C-alpha cells in the first residue's frame, strides 16, 4: 500500500514499486484524463505536475514518490475548466481529437508558471508534446492568449466567397 497526494487529497494505492505513476493514476485512482501515448516519455500525453513541474508520468516509477509531493492532474487543474489556460483553449477551439490535450494543457500551465510571458522560442522548447491532429498553431496561440499576449482576432482565418473576402 502506497500513498500519494493527488489534486490536494491523500490517496492510497496498491502497485508494484516500479509501476509508472501514469498507471497508478489511471488504473488505481480512476484519473483517466492523463493519457498513455508512448510509454517512453516521447509524446507527453501523460504529463502531470509534481510539485508544479511538468512530469511525464509514464516513466516516473511510483516508488520515487511519497505522500509529500503534490501531484496535480488535468482533473485537479480547476473545478470547472476555469483555469486561464483551459479558458484560452476553449476560446480558440484548440482540441481536435483531444487525446493529447490534457498533456498539452498541463505542459502549458507549467511553462506559464516559470515564464508568464513566453516567447515563441520558449514555447517551442517547453512544448515538446506530440499532437497527431496538428493543433500546434492553436496551442501556441492559446498559450499567448492565456499570457495576455494575443487578441482573439489575430488568428482569424480568411473566408472568401463569391462576394469577396470576408
Amino acid at each position, binding site marked *: 500500500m502506497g500513498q500519494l497526494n493527488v489534486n490536494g487529497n491523500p490517496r492510497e494505492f496498491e502497485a508494484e514499486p516500479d509501476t509508472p505513476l501514469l498507471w497508478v493514476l489511471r488504473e488505481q485512482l480512476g484519473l483517466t484524463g492523463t493519457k498513455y501515448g508512448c510509454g517512453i516519455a516521447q509524446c507527453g500525453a501523460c504529463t502531470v505536475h509534481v510539485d508544479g513541474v511538468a512530469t511525464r508520468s509514464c516513466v516516473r516509477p511510483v516508488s520515487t514518490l511519497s505522500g509529500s509531493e503534490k501531484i496535480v492532474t488535468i*482533473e485537479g487543474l480547476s473545478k470547472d475548466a476555469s483555469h486561464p489556460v483551459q479558458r484560452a483553449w476553449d476560446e480558440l477551439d484548440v482540441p481536435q481529437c483531444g487525446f493529447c490535450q490534457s498533456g498539452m494543457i498541463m505542459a502549458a500551465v507549467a511553462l506559464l508558471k516559470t515564464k508568464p510571458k513566453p516567447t515563441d522560442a520558449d514555447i517551442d522548447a517547453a512544448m515538446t508534446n506530440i499532437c497527431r491532429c496538428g493543433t500546434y498553431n492553436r496551442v501556441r496561440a492559446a498559450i499567448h492568449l492565456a499570457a495576455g499576449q494575443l487578441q482573439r482576432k489575430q488568428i482569424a482565418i480568411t473566408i472568401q466567397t463569391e462576394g469577396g473576402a470576408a
Partner: protein
Amino acid sequence: MNSRRHFLKASVGAAGGLMIGFHIPALADTPAGNPELNAWVLIQPDETVVIRIARSEMGQGTLTGLAQLVAEELGCDWARVRTEYPTPGQNLARNRVWGSFSTGGSRGIRESNDYVRKGGAAARMMLVAAAAAQWQCAAADCAVSKGEVLHQATGRRLSYGKLADAAARLPAPTDITLKDPREWTLAGKPMKRLDTRGKLDGSQIYGMDLTMPGMLNAAIRACPVFGGKVKSFDATKVAAMPGVKKVLQVDESSVAVVADTWWRAKTALDALDIVWDEGPNAKLSSADVAATLKAGLDADDAVAFNTQGDARAGLAGAVRKIEAVYACPHQNHATMEVMNATARWTPERCEVWTPTQNGEASLATVIETSGLPAAQCEVYKLHLGGGFGRRGAAQDWIAQAVNIAKQMPGTPVKLIWSREEDMQHGRYHPVTQCKMQAGIDANGKVTALHMRISGQSIVAGLFPQNIKNGLDPVVFQGLNPGGAEGAFGYAVPNLLIDHAMRNPPVPPGFWRGVNLNQNAIYLECFIDEVAHALKRDPLALRRELLANSPKPLAVLNAVAEKGGWGKPAPKGHYRGLAQIMGFGSYVAACAEVSVDRKTGELRVHKITAATDPGHAVNPQQIAAQVEGSFAYGLSAALFGQCTLKDGRIEQSNFGDYPVMKMEHMPQVEAIVMPSGGFWGGVGEPTIAVAAPAVLNAVFAATGKRIRELPLRLHSLKA
C-alpha cells in the same frame, strides 16, 4: 438499455474517477417517453434538442458540422443542441435508418448532408404542423426561430419542447424542400466545436478510459513478422506474476496476457517467452520491396486508367524528354490513442465498446468473431483519440478483443495495444514508386506525359474481391479522367497514367489522404521539375496547363497571391507551390522555407493554403483541418518511414518514428473559398499538397530535388 447505462456510470464511481461530464454517447441515454420526431431529432420537454450523429468524431469536427446541418433546417436554438451516437445494432434493427456509419474518405458530411438536412427539415415541418393544428391556422402562416414556432399574424408562440409530443404523433412529411445554402444562418458559419469541454478537463472518455465492474485488462503481442504464427509459449513463468489471471492464445498469430490492471498484463507479457513460426517472409527487407517496385516501373503488366491521345508516341516524337523517378515509403497512422476495445462475451450475447471509424464494420467483426447471431451482438462507439483511417476498414483489434473475451465468458476484458504493438501492426500507407516522363515540343509545350505508378494496392490488401482486371481505382486518386472525386486538372494532349500492381506482404490501409498524397508528390514535384527544365515560372506553367480548369486555377491563384509568389521573399526564404483535386475538393498550397546550407537545417516558415470544398459547412473547422493537414502531411514528408527488416517493421515508437512537433510547425494561413454547387471533403485533401509545396520550396532554396521520401534521408548541406 437503461440498466447498461447505469452499470457504466456506477462503475466509474466505484473506480474513484470523476463523474463530471461522463457520458457514453448512445441511445441508452434517452429517457423513456421522450418524443423522437425522426431518427435524427429528438426534443425533450426541457427544450434540449438531441441530434443523432451516425458518423464518428475523431477530431475532424464532423459531429459539429453534421449537427449544424440538422439544426439549420430544424430552426432550433443552437445553445440547446446536444449530440449522441446511435449504435450499429440499432441501425441494423431499424433497417439502416441512419445510413452508413463509415467515417473515412472525407465523406462524413459530403455523403450524408442531404439526408441529415432532410431529417432536420422534416422535424421542423412536424413541429410547425403541430402548432398550426393547435392554433387552427395554416402551416404556411407559421415561421420558426430559435426553437419556437411563431404565428405571424397574432404573434403567438410555442416552444419546440412543448410541441414535440404532439409533433411526434404526426406522419412524417414526404415532400421536403431544403434551404438554399445561400440562406444558411447557422451552417456555413465558423462555429465552435460542440465537443470541446470534456477535452479540457480530462472528462472525455475515450475507449482506453472505459472501466466496468469486474473488468480485466489484456496486453497482446502478435508475431512481429507479417504472415508469421505462434509456435509455442510458456505460460508457467508468468502465471504467478502479480495480478495475472490468464495467459492465452488469441488467434493463430497472437498471444495475450489478461490481468487485473493493464500495466501488470503488459509487464507479464514482456516476460513471456513466445516462440514464433516466422513463416515465408522472415527474410524480407525494404530493399527487396524497393527492387520489386522498381522493376514495375518498366513492366508490361500495367493497367491504364487515364488515357488521352497517345502518350508513348508523343514521348517518342518529342523534341525534349524529361524523366524522373520518385518513391514514397510505408507510413504508420500513429494515432495518439493506440488500438483498444473492451469486449464482453457470453453464450447469449457479445458487446464491444471501442473507438471506431465504422461502427457497422465493427459490428460485422463482432458477429463474425463471436459466432452469435447479429441480434445478439452490439457495438458502442466511443470518441476516438485519432483515426486517420486506421480504425476504419480493418477491424483487427476488435476480432482480437472478442477472441480474448470468448475465452473468459462473462468477464469484460479491455484490450489495449502497446505503442510498440501499434507501430508494428499497422495498416500502412502503401509503398509506391513512380516514373514520370514528359515530352516537350519545339515550342516548349508539354505535349506528352506518362505517369507510371508501381506498387501496393490498398484495395487488393483489404478487399481483394473488389479488384477487377487488375484495376484498383484508389491508386489513381487525383488523377482521374474527370468526375467529381479527383479529376486530373492539367491539359496534356497525350496522357497515360497507369499502374503496375506490386503487393509486398505488409498490410496496407487507408491512411489520411490515401493515394492522393503520393500522387500529388509525384505530379506536383515533377511539374516543378519540368518548369525549371524549361526555365518557366512554376506558377506560369501550371496556369497554362490549367487554363481550362477554373476551380483548380482559382485555388492556385489564391495561394500564389496571398503567399507572395513573384514578390520578394524575406532574405533566405524560398517558395514552392502545389495544387490537386481530391476527395471532391480543390486545394493548393504555397510554402515558404529556408535552409541553412552549413548545417542543412530546413525551416518551414509559412504555408498559405486554399480550399474550395463547394459548400463550407464550418469554415473554422475547415481551417483547423487545413492546419492539421500540414502537421500530418509534413510529418510524413520530413520524417516518417516504416522500414522492413527480417520481415518486420523496424520502428517501434515515436523515438524511431519521429513526427512533427511544435518547433517544426509552420504558420498556416487557411483560405476557405467555397464556390458553391458541390460538396467536397476537407479532412484529407490538403495533406496531399503539404509535401510537394515544401519539396518544391526546398528545391528553390537548394537546387536539390528530393525524389525519395522522407526528406531526412537526404542532406541539404551545400
